């Protein structure tokens, strides 16, 4: 790493980071190996329904889906729906992470805290998040708070348990070496436990994103007026297969994009792992 890496500031720095991000995120897609698989798949998708090998009403060809996407973008305010979903998703994600990471860290750090609260999560976590839907609707009614709560439930447990496990597995040598020099428990948590568990925390956030999206679709399909899951539910009610496929692909794209962001954050913050 050269010195000007540190000195670049402002818009140039931003552009450089964006470049790095897109290189990391899109790199996989533009490899020859993957294109060799993707292009035939896309061609099959286009031509199998057109040739009548698969009924077009069940699997609309790629071009139809693309046209529908464009149509939804222009006339059904798809962007607004996506923004709505994303907004709720980020609130839920923030809430869940802000609770799960500290609680997980405390549980991993101290046996007594663990003895008090771990059994609670062990009882609650096996309840599949979709099973919360009816209760949530009764308590919160249909609206943003219900969606946010459902998504938080989905994100909370994977983040909590992975963080807890990562913290608990911290190498005692590192703790000992910090303690000899006088580190307090809080310093240990901030400077030793956290970084030692960093990999598993990021991993847990990725699982959290996936679970959150599951709950996003489920929650919005159950009620609401906005959001990508709502569009999907509507498409289901009117049996509009191209619309369904657009919603599926948009949700998939959101998940992929968020996970790529997390990967990039990990790459940037865990530089020490790169040299290995």
């Amino acid at each position: 790493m050269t010195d000007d890496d540190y000195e670049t500031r402002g818009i140039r720095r931003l552009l450089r980071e964006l470049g790095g991000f897109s290189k990391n995120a899109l790199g996989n897609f533009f490899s020859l190996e993957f294109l060799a698989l993707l292009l035939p798949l896309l061609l099959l998708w286009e031509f199998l329904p057109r040739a009548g090998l698969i009924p077009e009403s069940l699997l609309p060809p790629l071009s139809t889906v693309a046209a529908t996407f464009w149509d939804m973008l222009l006339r059904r305010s798809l962007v607004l729906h996506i923004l709505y979903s994303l907004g709720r998703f980020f609130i839920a994600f923030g809430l869940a992470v802000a609770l799960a990471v500290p609680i997980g860290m405390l549980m991993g750090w101290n046996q007594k805290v663990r003895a008090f609260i771990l059994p609670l999560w062990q009882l609650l976590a096996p309840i599949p998040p979709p099973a919360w839907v009816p209760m949530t609707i009764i308590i919160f009614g249909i609206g943003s708070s219900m969606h946010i709560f459902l998504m938080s439930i989905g994100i909370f447990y994977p983040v909590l348990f992975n963080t807890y496990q990562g913290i608990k597995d911290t190498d005692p040598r590192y703790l000992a070496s910090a303690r000899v020099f006088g580190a307090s428990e809080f310093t240990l948590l901030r400077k030793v436990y956290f970084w030692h568990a960093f990999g598993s925390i990021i991993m847990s956030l990725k699982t959290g994103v996936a679970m959150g999206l599951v709950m996003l679709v489920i929650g919005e399909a159950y009620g609401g007026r906005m959001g990508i899951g709502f569009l999907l539910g509507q498409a289901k009610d009117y049996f509009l297969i191209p619309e369904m496929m657009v919603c599926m692909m948009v949700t998939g794209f959101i998940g992929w994009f968020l996970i790529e962001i997390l990967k990039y954050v990990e790459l940037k913050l865990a530089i020490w792992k790169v040299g290995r």
Partner: protein
Amino acid sequence: MIEARSISKFFSLVNEKGLAEGLTAVLNVSLTIPDGRIVSLLGPSGCGKSTFLEILAGLQAPTDGEIRIDGRLVLEPLPSTRKEMEEYKRRYRFISPLANGVFTDRPKHDIAMIFQDYAVFPWMTALQNVVFVLRLRSAGKRRSDRPSRAEMEEKAGFYLSKVGLAGAENKYPAQLSGGMRQRLALARALSVEPKIILMDEPFAAVDALQRERLQDDLLYLWEEAKGNASPIIIVMVSHDVPEAVYLSDEVVIFSPGPGGTVRNRIPVDVPRPRARTDPEIVAIQERIFAILQYDINQESMYTI
């Protein structure tokens, strides 16, 4: 001055039948180390010398006995009666007895320790590693006495260059070689200018040439501290007889474990600087080898 008074350490473990079993790691070790001495603890593997070193550092509580550093108790011994045990457990309910405090960084004693596998933090650069411990050490001082960040970085850089790591300040431990990582651990220990340095087989993982160089570096820094009227006690656990004799003022030999206890204390009264091939040094080495050899041959005598 370090005073260890009849230190014993028992562990309970579970044997292959699933029953609890006692294990004596250290048995009744008493040792007094005056200021400015280098002492080596030597003995076969599993004789409890590393455990003893950790007890000295306050990283494990002794089952019996007490360690005092300059008259101050390092860790209170584990309770011996059931009632005391309950009391002890209640007191350390939320926080381990080893902890320095919940929010304030405060070293209990002026000790630095170098671990066998370095234990430098892989997520910090060499400089950050040293600055981290410097900050921990200065946290106990009054606000006006605390050095600024720039001062700490300067000091860290100074000690890094002292052990020959100038230019590697911004590298992560994973990018350093084994010997360099060892020197980083050494710089980290020296930078806090401690009165006591404890080392657990510090040079075990570096090659022979590198090891001799590190030993000489260590002696040089130790002499320098002595010259500045701030003598350092170095307590070192070692497997390596020539290393122990060459470096130390006194070699403490542990009997084979389990239940290591002090078997011999052999003073090395050879003035420094010493030569590795000095006949006196070699004679002491051979004596120690003979003792260890005897222990190996008579091993059955030690097992009950």
